[in-house]
């Protein structure tokens, strides 16, 4: 086994409420790890801690052996809430991470164009968020996350606010992108089908306080077919796990 890129072993509580209890897992480079859990089980808290926005109450989150720190590590985080900056055009928004890291304007714009093309939004570079649809905004957030070529990409229910159709198309798109560059991804969702479609490995969380209930390695070849027998089998198994959780 490769040395882990991400090494998590921590608990988090807010006051008296235990949110995450003894969450331990490791992520290898180039892995697509999906964390599935019921609504309100602290998934967003997990995303915030992995990305360094929030700190665990005890334990550690290490990236390549060092405590996670946005000033050192090259992490990107796609948040669940719509996150486009209202006063930024798409190009400004997508290149924000590069600007913060001190990349020159010309280089940033050229990289920005690349990732905007990657998510299929070319031609909209000068649009403001209010001028584009919800699905496009989420693609901007994904492009922004990719622009900095992160070592670790964390996504917290990135398609949660999208309609079923757009969501499906986005899943295909995210897989297409991942197959090209094999970035290490931690993807958090409450949608089991989405998890089975995307994951190389799945962690199932219990409800509050969240602990890791079970781990699945998904070895169905890609691109996966949602109606494939093996796919439905894995999906049913995980669904069953989740029902026991409830």
């Amino acid at each position, binding site marked *: 086994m490769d040395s882990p890129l991400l090494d998590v072993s921590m608990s988090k509580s807010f006051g008296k409420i235990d949110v995450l209890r003894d969450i331990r897992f490791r992520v290898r480079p180039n892995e697509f790890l999906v964390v599935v859990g019921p609504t309100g089980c602290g998934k967003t808290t997990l995303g*915030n801690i992995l*990305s*360094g*926005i929030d700190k665990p109450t005890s334990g550690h989150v290490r990236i390549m052996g060092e405590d996670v*720190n*946005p*000033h*050192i590590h090259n*992490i*990107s*985080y796609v*948040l669940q*809430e*719509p*996150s486009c*900056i*209202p*006063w*930024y055009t798409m190009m400004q928004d997508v290149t*924000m*991470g590069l600007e*913060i*890291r001190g990349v020159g304007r010309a280089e940033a714009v050229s990289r920005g164009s690349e990732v905007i093309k990657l998510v299929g939004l070319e031609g909209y570079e000068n649009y*403001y*968020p*209010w*001028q584009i649809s919800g699905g496009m905004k989420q693609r901007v957030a994904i492009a*922004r996350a990719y622009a*900095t070529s992160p070592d670790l990409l964390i996504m917290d229910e990135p398609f949660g606010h999208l309609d079923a159709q757009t969501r499906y198309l986005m899943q295909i798109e995210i897989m297409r992108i991942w197959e090209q560059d094999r970035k290490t991804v931690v993807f958090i969702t409450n949608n089991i089908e989405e998890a089975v479609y995307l994951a190389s490995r799945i962690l199932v969380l219990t409800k509050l306080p969240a602990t890791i209930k079970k781990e699945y390695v998904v070895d169905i070849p890609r691109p996966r077919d949602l109606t494939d027998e093996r796919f439905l089998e894995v999906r049913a198994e995980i669904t069953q796990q989740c029902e026991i959780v409830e």
Partner: protein
Amino acid sequence: MNDKQKEQVKTVLYNILSLIVVAVLWTLFSAWQQSPFFPPPADIWKAFVGLATQGDIEGISLARHIWASLIRIFAGFAAACALGIPLGLAMGLWPRMYNRTRAVLEPIRFIPPIAWIPMAIVLLVGFSRYAFLIWLGAFFPIFITTLLSVTRVNPVHVNVAKVFGASRSYIIRKIVIPSVLPDIATGMRVGLGIAWMCIVAAEMIGGEMIGVGRLILKYAELIRMGEIIVGMLVIGIIGFLMNEIFIVVEKRVFRWRSEVSID
């Protein structure tokens, strides 16, 4: 002409219609009352022409009154912005500053500018009296809106920057300030309105015989309603025009917003 333009033309026409309706009602009312306290629009127009061409009882023309008031308002308003915006920003960013001085700031906010008149007369002279009272009226709406707006900055936007390792200064410059600017503009618009409301109070104590507020007071002593109403309308119309200009500028500056409030 598209639907939007049609709607705009309609809006303008209806506003003109509203004005006409009010003028007609006023005419009918004054004809019915037959009282010097309700001069008909024709008399108000005459009073206006008189004030504009011959000036008031002391020969000071309406334009000079307006100019004097405008300068006072701008002085007080500019001081209110210069103090209210930075202070609101600072206290919003460092809430402790506000929390620990709250007992001083908040009571002052509720003292109406008129209650400050005796203090202003005793402590200040000349131009500073006007500026001070107008400053008092305009400062708090600007300060408080800025302060509250900073606390309402969307944490998601801050987090987006944080994950990339943004410095505090980047977050303030690129996230916090652009996010609060529209609210600051709203606060300024409200502050400007209150500044106009304070002008009469300010000019009551100013000593100088010039200014739109003073004009109203002069004719109040003579109970000449025509000139008083001209003074009132002048304040109303200039305030209205300033507000309209403000809205146009806001829309230009905040292009990134899909809509701008027009209250």
